[in-house]
């Protein structure tokens, strides 16, 4: 069993958990993920490692409540336990001194991009951070990101904070300004990563994305997470989750991401009905 030692509500339906998992913390690196299961009836879901504390033996995850499992997770609090927590899975981000890099985090993608930006900066890169959210109250970790980057740029889709625009708008400006950028790392919702890739392709700027394909075991056993990259089938859990975004078949990914839509809708409707109300006030759904 794995204890939740800290919970923080970063934004509505956006939670941060710090989880006691010394075996995972010991080896965790930027870019890797864990798979967890809440209880014996639960499904296995992957979450990216947003931070780790080797000495304290904890892993930080940030997750958005989108369906049954993440809502049930969001209803847990400090001191509660998760039945299963396995990692660190996937390959770590490739970190070296490229010179100048841009790290883009959209929505909940800010969390996984944070440790990568930090590692790239520690490796001597000039790191331009770009983060964005739909609206002001969904934006989080601005200060944390600022400390991990050489420079941070912020935007909201609706203009409720700093400026109005998409991360791709800021990205275009940054690329135009900094002609010497040699790598872009972009993590966020699939459409965002796809948009980033079509933009950076125009500039021939190599772009790494972190793919969220549906997973079960996370060890290369089931093949559920397969994606087509450069015409070849790859397993996101062991060959990734990071890939060269210019080679990813995003169309196929988008189709595979919704394979279980009907079942997911049923599960979440049933959950919400059984748990009274559907808020993110951490009341545990009125239990």
């Amino acid at each position, binding site marked *: 069993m794995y204890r939740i030692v800290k919970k923080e509500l970063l934004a509505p339906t956006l939670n941060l958990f710090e989880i006691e998992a010394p*075996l*995972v913390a*010991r*080896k965790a690196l930027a870019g890797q993920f864990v798979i967890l*299961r809440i209880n014996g*009836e*639960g*499904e*296995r879901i992957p979450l990216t490692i947003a931070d780790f504390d080797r000495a304290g033996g904890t892993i930080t995850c940030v997750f958005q409540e989108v369906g*049954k*499992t993440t809502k049930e997770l969001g209803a847990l609090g400090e001191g509660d336990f998760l*039945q*299963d*927590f*396995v*990692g*660190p*899975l996937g390959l770590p981000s490739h970190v070296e001194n490229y010179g100048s890099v841009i790290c883009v985090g959209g929505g909940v993608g800010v969390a996984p991009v944070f440790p990568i930006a930090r590692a790239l900066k520690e490796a001597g890169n000039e790191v331009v951070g770009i983060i964005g959210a739909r609206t002001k109250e969904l934006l989080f970790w601005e200060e944390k990101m600022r400390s991990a980057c050489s420079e941070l740029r912020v935007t909201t889709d609706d203009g409720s904070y700093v400026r109005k625009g998409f991360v791709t708008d800021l990205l275009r400006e940054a690329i135009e300004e900094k002609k010497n950028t040699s790598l872009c790392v972009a993590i966020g919702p699939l459409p965002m990563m796809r948009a980033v890739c079509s933009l950076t392709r125009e500039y021939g700027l190599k772009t790494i994305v972190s793919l969220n394909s549906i997973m*079960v*075991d996370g*060890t*290369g*056993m*089931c*093949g*559920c997470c*397969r*994606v*087509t990259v450069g015409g070849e*089938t790859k397993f996101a859990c*062991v060959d990734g989750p990071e890939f060269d975004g210019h080679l990813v078949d995003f169309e*196929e990914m988008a*189709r*595979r991401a919704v*394979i*279980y839509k009907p*079942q*997911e809708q*049923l*599960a979440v409707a*049933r959950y919400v009905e059984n748990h009274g109300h559907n808020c993110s006030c951490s009341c545990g759904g009125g239990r």
Partner: protein
Amino acid sequence: MAQKKIIVPYKNPMPVRDPLERVDNFNEVALGYSEEAVLAEAGRCLQCKNAPCRQGCPVEVDIPAFIGLVSQKDFSGAIRKLKEKNALPAVCGRVCPQESQCEKYCTLSKKYDAVGIGRIERYCADWELANGVLPQTVAPLTGKRVAVVGSGPSGLTCAADLAKLGHKVTIFEALHVAGGVLMYGIPEFRLPKAVVQAEIENLKKLGVEIIVNAVVGKFATVDELIEEEGYDAVFIGTGAGLPYFMQIPGENACGVYTANEFLTRANLMKSYCFPEYDTPLRVGERVAVLGGGNVAMDAARTALRLGAEEAWIVYRRSRLEMPARREEVEHAEEEGVKFAFLTSPTKILYNNDYWVTGLECLRYELGQPDASGRRSPVPIKGSEFLMEMDTVIVAVGQGPNPLVTRTTRGLECNKKGNIIANPETGATSKPGVFAGGDVVTGAATVILAMGAGRIAAKAINAYFGKKD
């Protein structure tokens, strides 16, 4: 001198649940012999002096001896005799391909039905589970620590034997439960999970520690287990968990599963209880399973149980060449699984939404026997035809998962990625590191994996003796 025996030509039938009653649930299909039936079946054994049956058993169970004890109603003696060679009789009695192993060599099989060795074995093991497990003796602790990687039959057996010898064993398992394929692959209706878990509880009683959610190669490498964690030896029994594909177009379409995914969702994650259990599975109405082994049969039978209207086995050769256990093929057929023999898909078709719509297939005929004596299938020109399907399950084999082998210094593997190990000892190219089961042989059988675990335990014990 024993009297001349009267030969009983037919095997006592195994009571099974009615096909119509069993296809919509996961309860065990074969119910096991009654005491009366097991005594009658044991009575068929001729107690042959040379015991040809033993040479067909990969671990050389003393078959006439244990069957003789059954005849005397000494079930505890019989199970003791079985366990001298076979650590998991409740499992092997159910899943060994007896017709190509022990029973194939039974004297009776030349003219009549072979003695139902597996069924008698299962009876003894179930008797033990029902009547309390026989006391096991554990030697005093030696101070040696062994890490076992993977908790399939090879790892479980190796761990049990080492623990009995007084070594402290820790099993590291990547998934959230121990048991390997016995838990995530072979379905409940063929091998109840309670049977596997009883064996695992037994192991814990011997003092074996099992750490689940521990992927070796990720949280620690084999080298680190030895150098940093101080294990004196390591046994690698990580199986063959990497799914192969046919390498035909369309394999990444929605609705195409590997058998591993399909069976893992169903068995390990209990999708058949969705939404009480959270893991979803979409079965579809017309399911094609590509392949002809046990894995394919399990997938097809599972699909029917989960509501598919039709489940097809699509196999390149003919019925005779199918590697699946005969009993499973018969059960599958009784349950309504359909077979397309001498057929192989060339393409998986899908619609604009990327969902599977069917298979484009070629018909085959059997050509000349090859070096192995098997007649190899040859495609018939111009025989293309279409099979409409909305789910495809690829069950064309598995290879070794590279997570451990790629992260272990100085561990030699063959071209396919299997660890190279001495068949007599399980020793690998790396001192103190032993391996066995599917990761060495490629996808094989439970009994072979178990036997390899046992051999390695013996060799690890000897290795400790030599080192001191």
